[in-house]
């Protein structure tokens, strides 16, 4: 005889999790709840415009907390910075993948294109991806809508340059009497096809490139400290910003934007070592995917066919990735040996993946959505995810 189901079945919780905003580690029992009663507005850390966070002492039968005014609460917040995080983080392990690159390298475009591709073609790409908490990914949705779901696809659009403070990418919190800026991550629930691996949360950050410049990391704005916790890094390299690379790829010199991306890479490696307490002469053990952006402009020179995507049999192909890596590395060695030297000095596991977020060069007033055809846009993220322990590419040595 079956009993009357009074209580929800117990959920398995992770033993410890890290806040995706400030990376504070804490047990699930220490998580605060976000009050729902409209009268409980104003939190001393999260801000006067945020609902009060509280450690609950009363729960209902489904495990939801009851706030001091009696409202049922399900949203959770970090006990330190009091920023909201998805409830799934209590139940599923999360993996941080940092997205790094110089200003103007194309991080935001790549993230928007990759997210759009993964949502639409998850089965073919071997990964199912959904928003862990749609509200928290709103900024990414806006970028996707602008590029891929425009009402008038012939009207040129452009993504705004990512702000270094304020906007939707960062939140100001008051910790111990001082203001601190924390980044707002994008969090996805991801499951790969064909392998016996439980669902995992993928936490991505879209920092402004300025934050990766030397000297831009400080205690008041610790917005790149995710590098100390990340299990994988996607470094967006814009080869067209490197004069040597442009020459090697046969691109016109013109009045192109140039930047020393090898310095950004060295700075990133330095921060990874500092935040993990590693020796300065030690290679970083985190797997690094170099997303070589704007490949539609230089792929032919490298001998890479962007029409042949790196997926087969409902998943990513290690053989195709390896071939593309070797072609990209050869071109990088010819065009930007200083970048390759910095890469080899700092990282043990590197995979170069060509990609093009838009598949078409922009015009003066932006890019027309009708012309956008991303190529390999999701590949760097699929590769980074599958390179994590338990993934298809675990153990890959390009």
């Amino acid at each position, binding site marked *: 005889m079956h009993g009357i189901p009074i209580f929800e079945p117990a959920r398995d919780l992770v033993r410890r999790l890290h806040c995706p905003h400030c990376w504070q580690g804490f047990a699930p029992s220490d998580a605060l709840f976000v009050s729902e009663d*409209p*009268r*409980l*507005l*104003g*939190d*001393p850390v999260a*801000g*006067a*415009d945020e*609902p*009060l966070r509280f450690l609950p002492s009363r729960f209902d039968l489904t495990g939801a907390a009851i706030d*001091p005014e009696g409202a049922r609460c399900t949203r959770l917040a970090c006990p330190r910075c009091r920023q909201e995080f998805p409830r799934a983080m209590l139940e599923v392990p999360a993996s941080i993948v940092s997205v790094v690159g*110089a*200003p*103007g390298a194309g991080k935001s475009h790549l993230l928007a294109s990759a997210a759009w591709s993964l949502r639409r073609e998850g089965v073919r790409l071997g990964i199912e991806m959904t928003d862990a908490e749609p509200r928290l990914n709103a900024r990414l949705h*806006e970028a996707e809508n602008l590029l891929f779901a425009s009402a008038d696809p012939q009207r040129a659009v*452009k*993504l*705004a*340059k990512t*702000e*270094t*403070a*304020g*906007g*939707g990418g960062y939140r*100001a919190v*008051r910790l111990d009497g001082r203001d601190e800026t924390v980044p707002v991550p994008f969090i996805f629930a991801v499951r790969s096809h064909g392998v016996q691996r439980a669902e995992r949360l993928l936490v991505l950050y879209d920092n*402004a*490139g*300025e934050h990766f*410049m*030397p*000297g*831009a990391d400080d205690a008041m*704005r610790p917005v790149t400290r995710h590098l100390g916790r990340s299990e994988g890094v996607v470094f967006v390299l814009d080869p067209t910003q490197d004069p040597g690379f442009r020459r090697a790829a046969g691109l016109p010199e013109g009045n192109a*934007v140039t*930047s020393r991306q090898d310095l950004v890479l060295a700075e990133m490696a330095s921060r990874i070592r500092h935040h993990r307490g590693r020796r300065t002469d030690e290679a970083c053990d985190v797997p690094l995917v170099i997303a070589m952006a704007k490949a539609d402009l230089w792929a032919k020179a490298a001998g890479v066919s962007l029409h042949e995507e790196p997926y087969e049999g409902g998943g990513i192909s290690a053989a195709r990735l390896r071939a593309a890596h070797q072609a990209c590395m050869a071109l990088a060695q010819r065009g930007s040996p200083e970048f390759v030297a910095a890469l080899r000095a700092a990282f043990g596991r590197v995979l170069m993946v060509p990609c093009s977020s838009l598949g078409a060069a*922009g015009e*003066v007033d932006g890019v027309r959505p009708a012309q956008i055809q991303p190529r390999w846009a999701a590949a760097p993220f699929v590769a980074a995810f599958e390179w994590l322990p338990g993934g298809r590419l675990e153990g890959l040595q390009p």
Partner: protein
Amino acid sequence: MRAEVIHTSVRRGLDGGTGFAVAARTGGMPRVLVESVSALSGLTEAWSGASDWDRTLRATRAVSMPAGVQWVASVIRPSGMDHTGRGNRLAHHRVLDADEVERCDPAQLLCDHERWMASFSGEPRELDVPAPLPGAQATSGAANAWKSAFGDAGVAAEMLERAFQSGVGAWIVLPAGVDRLQLLREMVALLPPANRWKRGWSTRPLRPSADPVPVICVVDEREPEVQKAPVNAAWMLRPRSGEAPRASEALLRRAREGAEPAAPKPVEPLRAATVSWAPPARLEAAAPGHASRGGSPDVMSVADASQETNPIRVELEVPLRRGSSIFWRVMKTVLWLGVAVMLCAVALWLFRGQGT
């Protein structure tokens, strides 16, 4: 100190870096001041279809520095495309010295279009120390633009008084199509000059916060931040049309007739008690009108700013009333009588039986 900072997206910043960086600044500025001012440069997205004028943020804000509070006036506006072909913005900040704060009108400063840079060209460079700002111009004082928009200039008085009482700042949400800058100018002009810098002012929404100097924002109802905010947010004030505005008589008269700001009231002797701030557990704690338990601050009064509402440390003002003074005297007498009775009782107990 008087100084200027231009923060925008450039190939190479004056102090290094690329992308959003300091393009120009006054020579000799302390690094910590440059960084604090630069951190104010963000421009949030506006609603779809907003013009560059609508997207422009004009604000005066107080920045806490080791040496004290420093006032910064800023105009941050869209500025075409940067060298990478992406949408750019230009932030022009003016750091004010104490004399300028005393002399200037914040709204007039923000409205002075000639003073603010619209685009930056050329190499990154150091700027000369800017010339002192001129003093505030006299105004009629009447809130005519408010009258045109809402039918009664007294609405400006009500909004101002309510916004001034909030300890975390306020958003005055205005209907689409009104000239926010002009409305802001008229509202600030209602205040006595000494009170105009007791709050920051802005034409785009800035997050309410427990900063030492709250900011009053005059914002468009189409702003995404307004749409996302809780409907009953205490810091959001919406002018009501068709109802008689409620504000102090002097402020209403000033808004409607343009009368001069009222003379300061004679200040009663005050005794200050300090109450530590606690996290606002209920709406009332952060709501306008409830930030100070000692009563609403009078926007027309030019009493010392240190006696005003402070969201972190609330100075509770307790007037020395005649009634309470008599009460304390009676209490003291009762106490002394009690002590005398106790002493008598002890003496009687010690000397008991000696008389027999």
